[in-house]
């Protein structure tokens, strides 16, 4: 397993953002669904080794992120796209991706090839030498995705990756993460259930800091057909049915 979470909790003062989550995942694409404030981003930040958990056991890529040496190894094989991508406007696309490749300690002689491959994967070749300040929001999102995959991560974490992408690019991105999921563990936090249906082999649904559903997209769809879910698409109905049940139980 690339990810093993056991009873993970994260508190911010009195607010419990993640509440006793137990989860494991191997290679494949795991969709992380949930309403606003469900704890998805906090969970993703813990998986990205940005936040330490308040309690519980976390193992990533077989290592303990609390230990500095292990944390370095995890980060070497980690790709992360935050919800809000910060960037340096004066850098070009290639420089920004190269900068992160070097900070992730990709061997310097492999960096040019890795950067070129990442740029091609997100279809930014024609804008490779453009300054970031000249790019649109969707293009910047693709730059963010490129920096996340430049080190060929074994654990890739994407927080709202398709926000701002046009339909064509969203389709391309889904293909990209499916491809990545062949060998790596990819976790995609999103509000867009169609992304989950198209790209994810598994789904986890969070509500109030807890994982209230874990299964395949087909199982989520089935829950919608069986329950009281509302929505236009089968997955949306499954999503709302599980959330309704979770809220009723709490």
């Amino acid at each position, binding site marked *: 397993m690339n990810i093993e979470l056991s009873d993970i909790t994260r508190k911010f003062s009195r607010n419990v953002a993640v509440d006793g989550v137990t989860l494991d995942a191997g290679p494949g694409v795991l969709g992380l669904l949930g309403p606003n404030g469900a704890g998805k981003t906090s969970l993703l930040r813990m998986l990205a080794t940005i936040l330490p958990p308040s309690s519980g056991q976390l193992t990533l890529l077989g290592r303990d992120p609390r230990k500095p040496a292990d944390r370095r190894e995890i980060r070497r094989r980690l790709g992360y796209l935050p919800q809000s991508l*910060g960037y340096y406007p004066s850098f070009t696309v290639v420089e920004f991706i190269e900068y992160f490749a070097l900070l992730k300690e990709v061997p310097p002689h492999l960096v040019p090839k890795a950067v070129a491959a990442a740029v091609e994967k997100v279809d930014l070749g024609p804008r490779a030498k453009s300054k970031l300040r000249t790019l649109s929001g969707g293009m910047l999102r693709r730059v963010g995705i490129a920096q996340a995959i430049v080190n060929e991560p074994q654990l890739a974490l994407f927080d709202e990756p398709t926000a701002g992408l046009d339909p064509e690019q969203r389709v391309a991105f889904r293909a990209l993460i499916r491809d990545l999921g062949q060998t790596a563990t990819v976790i995609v936090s999103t509000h867009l259930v169609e992304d989950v249906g198209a790209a994810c082999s598994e789904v986890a649904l969070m509500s109030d800091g807890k994982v209230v559903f874990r299964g395949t997209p087909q199982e989520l769809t089935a829950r919608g057909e069986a329950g009281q879910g509302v929505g236009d698409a089968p997955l949306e109905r499954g999503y709302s049915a599980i959330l309704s049940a979770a809220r009723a139980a709490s």
Partner: protein
Amino acid sequence: MTAVALSRGPARVLRIEIRRSVVLWSVPLLLGLFYFDAFRTAAGLPPVWTVRSSAITTHMIADFGPFAAGLAAWVASREGRRKTGDLLATTVRPAWARQASALGATLFWLLLTFLAGVAALYIDVARQATWGGPPLWPVAVGVVEVATFAVIGFTAGALFPGRFTAPLAAIGTFLLAEIGYHAALGVQPGTSTYALLSPSTAVPLGDDGVFYHVAPDLAIAQVMFMGGITIALLGLLTLAPVFRLSYREFWSGVSRVGRWLCVAGVALLAAGVAASWTAFALTGTARLGVSGWIIPALHDAASDQPVPYTPDCAGTSFKVCVHPAFSAYLDAANMALQPVAAEIAGLPGAPVRAGQVASGNGVRNAQGMRIAGLATAGLSGTPPVYTYTSDNPTAPFWGSPGIADTAFWGAGFQQELLTPFITGSNNTLLEGNVPTPAQQAVVTALTTALSPQAQLSQGFINGQSPGRIAAAAERFASLSPATRHAWLATHLPALRAGTITLDQLP
């Protein structure tokens, strides 16, 4: 990863940072400031290495320092301003290494621009200087000072990332530099140590480093003090992630940052504070010597020995000599003094030679400050020799050689020679002997006769109205040179004794 790969990675990060550094945009502004302030100011000073290099510490640091602090704060605060913290936190390289690259790129452009300015300044001096070589201590002080200002700004930007940090850092360091500069203006023994540690204190007298070496003691202390601050701030930056945590998270924070890194941070902080404190304590023992400020623990007594030189001279029967560093003034000095020598030739006590000696030359006023010029300007020896310094009050070599071509400059120089000759006092002002009205009138008359276009001041009024002295001077000046010479040959002893009145002047 191999060691080579590990070293190439940071080098490439640094290359990206250098290529995209915000400082690059400020280089034209910094060069413009340098040209209009430091370079032009230096160009107006004598073409003497030590004198012109003082523009590095008095002007260039003030020009570069606040910009260095502001730009470095802007660079350091970008992770907070651009919200890249989360993204960067997932990378392998620690924050200190990332910041080191950003700081390195900032320093690269700042110091490159600073050193380019120094090079331009020194090339200009090299084209005009007639003696000596470029002093390196002012450059070392300047480099360390600019680096310190940059690190102060960088630390402020890293600890308090925000869009107002950069202007506040620039303003704060500007005020700091100004306080230091003003403290240094009134620096004297017993004054605050901070004033001595301000690089502006290195401003030399007109001929420091010419007759005697400039002792590097104070420069060493300044470098140590500023370097200590820089090292301490780098330690603080290393520890910054721990300081941001609450006390409950402190030990887990230490663990996350890395125990050895924390040890290194504490060691840097301690070493920096120790270096600065040592420099402060050493500076407290500073005293003035012939070679400038001396710190006993750092002083090399060999630097107190006079620097050997062969003077440049002009004239035949009456030689006018200058130190070779001031050769640019030789023609003007010769032109000014030869007519005086001719006017008084053959009179008792007339000098046979004029020579430049060191300013101050170890003479101190009541506060212990060196007295520039007055100490050794005068007539002495047998046969008498007129000695003057580079900063005589009315005939200074304290400006570009162009000012030596003016009539006023020449007349002032002539008056400097005539006053001790007519009064018979080796140094009138230092000995407190104010010339009698008749002596004043004769000095003024002779100077006016030699330089009729110069407007001389009546500097020694002593109980007589300026009008009466001026009238007597005019009367005496209107005599033929032969008549004046004959009268002086007869009456000079009485004139020197003060027994001749204004009415007795022909």
